[in-house]
């Protein structure tokens, strides 16, 4: 049995002894041949590992206008390996920081990891510290980059801001390689496209002497700059839109009907992302989140209200598609109808008289749509509303969206355990009652009406090649043409409710809407906080639309007064001749 083994034991014994020999040679190499190199590192020298931050990618608008800039940012750090005990208090004193806290930081760090003491130094402060570097070799002055948002509050909700890695993110594996002090995208596009913009930090392993002077670069990996990002928005449109709002609160969402690109996304009031660029101060943060006007709320996506008369377009489409009315069908508006004990009025006290669909839309007659909605039925209205993307998230991932609400009989049974009443159909037909939409949803709706019924995925980045729509609504082209023709009338006709949006530059189609806050008859005389919200959905040019948008003004009263002029200004800013645009900044 051992016969075969005796040969093999020789193999094993020989191999083992050989391995011991290899180890001795390795020791000889490490200790004697390379010994000097390591001795140098150990004795008076130490290693310093520096992370070289990667320049963050620049964000541009669709026309290549830069929206952000990386500016130098000076900060002073401390390398505790170089610290003499007596220095600590002196350093804390002349930098005006808490020595106790500094001590705690030193204890919790990894070896050779510099501790950031103070950022955002002025040139004067840098010079002051620079002069003392020879006394305190543990101090290091670094130049980092900070983000400067060139347009300030304009587009802040969309562009977003940077922030420090928060503790819960620090535990997640996808942020593993990010240094604790680093800034990453925490809001808006900066957050959504953080990985694209971030780049890969470089690294320098440096040999330094006892005074912190650099002796030699042992290893270097250059940083890789983050990719630039071209957004879908047009910053001039964005700016014009925000200016048009003035002091009013509200939102605007503009889409390119042929692609779904977001041309502008406004939420007013806005905030200044530059406050966040290097860590927002506690008082600034409190001011932002405690403000009664809630500037951090993205009203384009997170506020939902009854769409008011803008919803009549859905009622009209449902009634036409179900063939319960024809364009030439007329109803007689006497200023209201009654149903049992209840009466449902038209906004025009005396009534509109006998009118067809075209005038019903241009003059926004409530009675016509009560009756058209009654013929179509709530379930048909809901069916078409959903086809146009109402009652569901649009998929703009900037913030957690509100879904809105499109009621039908099943919904009411499920939620309220009650049957659906005709009066509720009347309310829903004119976009009141249970119906709720966000501005972004109405933008999707008007975009699809204007482009022949195609629903595109809303996009935040510029599209380089044509995209396929997500779906096409099941509505005949003639139906949409009838609606579009009436929408042109809303703005162009003398009695049209959107007359205030009429432009000399371009042919605009649109529809006003009012979301009731209280049901008082004389809404115009109530204080602003109780006044109705104003809607306006629009697109232009009517024939071959390049822009579709929604304007929402909180407590703006009737859509024709406040919302329509904003829409007009935004559209003109986008469609008027684009000269010297990229030289603006």
């Amino acid at each position, binding site marked *: *049995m051992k016969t075969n083994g005796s040969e093999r034991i020789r193999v094993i014994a020989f191999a083992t002894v050989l*391995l011991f020999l290899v180890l001795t040679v390795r020791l000889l190499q*490490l200790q004697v041949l390379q010994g000097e190199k390591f001795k140098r590192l150990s004795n008076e020298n130490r290693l310093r590992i520096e992370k070289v931050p990667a320049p963050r990618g620049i964000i541009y608008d669709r026309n290549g206008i830069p929206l952000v800039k990386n500016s130098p940012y000076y900060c002073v750090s401390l390398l505790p390996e170089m610290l003499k005990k007596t220095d600590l208090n002196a350093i804390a004193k002349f930098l005006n920081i808490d020595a106790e806290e500094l001590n705690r930081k030193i204890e919790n760090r990894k070896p050779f990891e510099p501790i950031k003491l103070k950022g955002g130094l002025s040139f004067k402060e840098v010079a002051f510290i620079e002069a003392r570097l020879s006394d305190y070799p543990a101090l290091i002055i670094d130049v980092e980059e900070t983000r400067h948002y060139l347009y300030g509050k304009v587009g802040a909700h969309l562009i977003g801001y940077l922030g420090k890695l928060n503790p819960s993110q620090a535990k997640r594996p996808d942020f593993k390689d990010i240094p604790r002090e680093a800034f990453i995208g925490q809001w808006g596009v900066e957050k959504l496209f953080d990985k694209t913009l971030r780049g890969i930090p470089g690294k320098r392993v440096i040999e330094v002497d006892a005074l912190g002077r650099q002796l030699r670069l042992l290893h270097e990996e250059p940083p890789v700059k983050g990719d630039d990002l071209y957004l879908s928005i047009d910053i001039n449109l964005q700016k014009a839109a925000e200016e048009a709002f003035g002091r009013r609160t509200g939102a605007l969402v503009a889409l390119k009907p042929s692609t779904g690109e977001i041309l502008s996304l406004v939420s007013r009031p806005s905030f200044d992302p530059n406050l966040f660029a290097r860590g927002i101060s506690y008082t600034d943060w409190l001011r932002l989140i405690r403000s009664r006007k809630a500037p951090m709320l993205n009203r384009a996506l997170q506020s939902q209200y009854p769409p008011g008369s803008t919803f009549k377009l859905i009622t009209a489409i449902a009634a036409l598609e179900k063939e319960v009315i024809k364009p030439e069908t007329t109803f007689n508006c006497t200023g209201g109808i009654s149903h049992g004990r209840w009466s449902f009025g038209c906004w025009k006290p005396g009534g509109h008289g006998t009118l067809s669909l075209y005038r019903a839309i241009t003059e926004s007659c409530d009675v016509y749509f009560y009756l058209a909605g009654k013929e179509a039925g709530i379930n048909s209205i809901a069916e078409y509303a959903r086809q146009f993307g109402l009652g569901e998230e649009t998929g703009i991932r900037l913030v957690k969206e509100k879904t809105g609400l499109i009621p039908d009989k099943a919904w009411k049974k499920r939620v309220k355990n009650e049957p659906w009443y005709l009066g509720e159909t009347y309310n829903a037909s004119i976009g009141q009652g249970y119906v709720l939409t966000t501005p972004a949803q109405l933008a999707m709706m008007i975009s699809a009406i204007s482009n022949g019924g195609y629903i595109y995925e809303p996009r935040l980045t510029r599209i380089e090649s044509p995209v396929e729509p997500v779906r096409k609504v099941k509505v005949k082209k003639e139906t949409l043409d009838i609606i579009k023709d009436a929408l042109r009338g809303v703005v162009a006709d003398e009695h049209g409710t959107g007359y205030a949006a009429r432009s000399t530059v371009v042919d605009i189609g649109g529809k006003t809407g009012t979301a009731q806050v209280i049901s008082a008859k004389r809404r115009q005389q109530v204080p602003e906080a109780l006044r109705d919200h104003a809607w306006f959905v629009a697109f232009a040019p009517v024939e071959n639309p390049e822009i579709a948008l929604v304007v929402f003004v909180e407590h703006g009263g009737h859509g024709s007064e406040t919302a329509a002029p904003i829409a007009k200004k935004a559209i003109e800013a986008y469609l008027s001749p684009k000269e010297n645009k990229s030289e603006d900044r």
Partner: protein
Amino acid sequence: MSFGKTYDRWLLIITLLLTGFGMLMIYSSTSVVTPTLAKRNITEFYYFKKHLFTVAVGLIVMFAASKVSPALLRKLAIPLLLVSFVLLILVFVPGIGVSAGGAKRWIRLWPSTFQPSELVKLAMVIFLARFMSMPEYRADRFFYFFMPVAIMGIFQVVFLGQPDFGAAMSLGVLTIGMLFLSGVRLRYIASLLLFCIPIVIKLLQEPYRLKRITSFLDPWKDAKGSGFQLVQSFIALGSGGLTGVGLGKSRQKLDFLPEVHTDFIFSMIGEELGFIVATIVVVLFAVIFLRGVSIANRAKSDFVYYLSYGLSMMLAFQALVNFSVVTGLLPTKGLPLPFISYGGSSLFVNMIAVGILINVSRPEQEQKTKDDLTEIIKRKKAKRAVYGDAL
């Protein structure tokens, strides 16, 4: 007693020499109370005192092991393997198992902890020696190859669950090494490569795992993170040079080199005492191995033959892996240096191995007449029966 002249003295002397040297170096590495240690109320003699106790127990264990006859050891082979398996499983039992750094490798054992994976190695060697020395054992039959590999596989699964890749690797190499020795067909061993295929696929699919394993090849790349320990080990060894910076004068032990008193003690030996002493340590381990080989070659029974080879391989392999890790030839795995590193489990098991080797190094007649513990007890009982309490 007259057996003194016949056992392998060198083996005992070198073992005691390395153990004593280990005590000295453990004192050196832990006597400087760095701020990190001071925070945990650890004083100058804290580790040394604990280690002193461990060594004392280790010597008793070694002596006891040297009194266990091969026949008894043979009988104990399977129970020992089962016991080691149970202990290994206890690691997962809350309250008994102790986890550190995300790994569950220890069981609570007053006043300290015990690492069952160390015992598993010993139990496996004894079991394999018994298995291969069975009269019906046929090295050219796949069944006799497959059986031990399957048993090893069960242990491997537990190791990977802990996780303890170092122990898994040690047990694998040890088992395959002994099977190779017994003369199994090489293609059986080659067939084990099939098991590597899923591992290779996984590594190719998830390159970061491969990167983690191969990061030891270039520790400078991440000198602050994954390569930190190795870079510090290099600095320690390198700054030692030919003759060292002097006993007790290591700089690297000042919080720079993690685990300096356990897995990385050899780096500090190299720093304080230099290449010459470090090489002597390496040579001493090689001599232990060669003494073991020579004991095996003199063995009169197959059991003792395989047992001696297995134990010598076990000792040599642990030392080789530890040396390779601290010199950057193998990825960093938690394996202590036998006899020298701080830590009881490893010391006890290695002491037992030496005790067994010392015992079997004696001529077989003497073992039979003098060392069979049961025999001795029987004889004493017989004497007592004759002379009564007068003795």
